[in-house]
């Protein structure tokens, strides 16, 4: 006993009523679980819209039906769809689209969702090219197999393509913050419904 540092004992684990002993997910707002197949079907529809030239409708559809309840794979599929659409929209069209989106019904919430995807996209490096493959690769790559766990686990979006995607996300971010202010950024950080 003498050589146990009692300051490091987790006293919460010993108390039955402590927060350590209940499921923290019960605190989050209820989200509908979404299966990966559904996300895939939805992304198909959205891509179709986008291919038909209706990028704005596609973006709106993607943001309004963001799969908060999907698993990691489902979420990364949806992320790649969103970033694809964002890249399809020309710089000059960004502000008018955002304005129309923000002023519509539930506009503030849609813009918050877009902000979530921008940050998620930036965290991913080069999302459009790697997001889907990353998710599938992650399970196969074991630390022993490569020996470069750090390098394998993180993708800095290297090369021209990644930089391009990042600059698109950054210009969307700039235009979005102009519209919705720091309030939206704070909401993304505090929101427990992640994308």
């Amino acid at each position, binding site marked *: 006993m003498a050589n146990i540092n009692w300051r490091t004992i987790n006293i919460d684990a010993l108390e039955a009523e402590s927060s350590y002993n209940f499921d923290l997910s019960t*605190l989050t707002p209820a989200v509908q679980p979404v299966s990966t197949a559904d996300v895939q079907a939805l992304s198909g529809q959205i891509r179709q819209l986008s291919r038909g030239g209706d990028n704005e409708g596609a973006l709106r559809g993607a943001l309004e039906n963001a799969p908060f309840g999907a698993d990691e794979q489902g979420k990364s599929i949806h992320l790649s769809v969103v970033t694809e659409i964002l890249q399809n929209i020309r710089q000059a069209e960004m502000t008018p689209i955002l304005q129309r989106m923000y002023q519509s019904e539930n506009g503030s919430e849609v813009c918050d969702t877009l902000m979530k995807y921008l940050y998620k996209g930036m965290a991913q490096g080069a999302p459009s090219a790697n997001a889907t493959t990353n998710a599938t690769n992650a399970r196969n790559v074991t630390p022993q197999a490569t020996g470069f766990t750090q390098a394998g686990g993180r993708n800095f979006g290297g090369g021209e393509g990644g930089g391009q995607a990042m600059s698109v996300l950054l210009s969307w971010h700039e235009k979005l913050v102009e519209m919705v202010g*720091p309030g939206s950024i704070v*909401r993304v950080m505090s*929101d*427990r419904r992640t994308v």
Partner: protein
Amino acid sequence: MAAPEVHHLFHAPIADHSFSADRNTLAVTHSNTLELYKRNGNAFRLQDELRGHDKTITGVDIAPRSGRIVTCSQDRNAYVWEPSSTGQWKPTLVLLRINRAATCVRWSPSETKFAVGSGARIIAICYFEEENDWWISKHLRKPLRSTVNCVAWHPNSVLLAAGSADGHARVFSSFIKGVDDRPEPSVWGERLPFNTVCGEYLNPTAGWVHGVGFSPSGNALAFCSHDSTITVVYPSGPEQPPQAVISVATQLLPFADLLWISESEILCAGYDCEVYRFSGQASGWQLTGSLEAAGKAGAAGVQREESALNHFRSLDLKGRSGTGADDTKLRTVHQNTINTLRSYEESGAGVRKVSTGGVDGRVVVWTV
């Protein structure tokens, strides 16, 4: 609109402040001492320091009629300070029986009880027991899931609203037999034994709730949370879904506290260092402006009038443009986050003046 009355007391954060009913005494938390300031003309002079807490004081409240002061601290204790005939303040320790810091404290309007929120997911309701000459605390526990950030009393002194870091604002009954009169039935319920949960509301993002408040009539509840929103709830009756829950998402940084100034107006203040005004009713609410708006444009104009010579001279001498002081100063009266927002003066129609205390060590009195 009259200019705000600014009192820069010291260079340390003010976690909480409270004015006495005659507004001549100002109690301010300063680290682990409570400082009492007396009004002296237009300024406040330090008059007394109340020592007793070992750690940072997180809450202070002066009971308007009895003049008793209650403080709570991170040392998990609360003290009730009573004025004695010699002019000294006599502290009475209140055992809260909590194992985490106390975060906030408020007297009930009846002044027979006070509520202390804590990090132990407990609200201690404390009342005085004559027989034992001792403050007793009773715990509200369920269904709190995280630290209680703020508490607010209903005008009937039985219902208590609490905002918590689990993203919920809740309304509890704190009815104590022998202390409280049986409350009139209201939209919140009819029979209200201790720890009845009369309402539980979650904001859309489940962000921390920083401030709660009942409307003057007590028939509506508002809370502000860390997702930069304020939410107003209009209950329709006991055990029924509320008739309206309105959430206003703002473009600003989050609010730390709110105050109803009438049934249709709320003031909010927080990390933007400004006081904002919201107005509305059960059909909808919106942001209508800031208390600082007047005079701000003029100040900016003066700053612009600077000759090119001065500009380059200061660039040369100091390595930056501008005249020095201005680029380290915010345009707002408060120079840092506002922690608390309190009613200062009320008239029949509602609150006429409010006071704010902030991390910059200022207490400011605003005319609404």
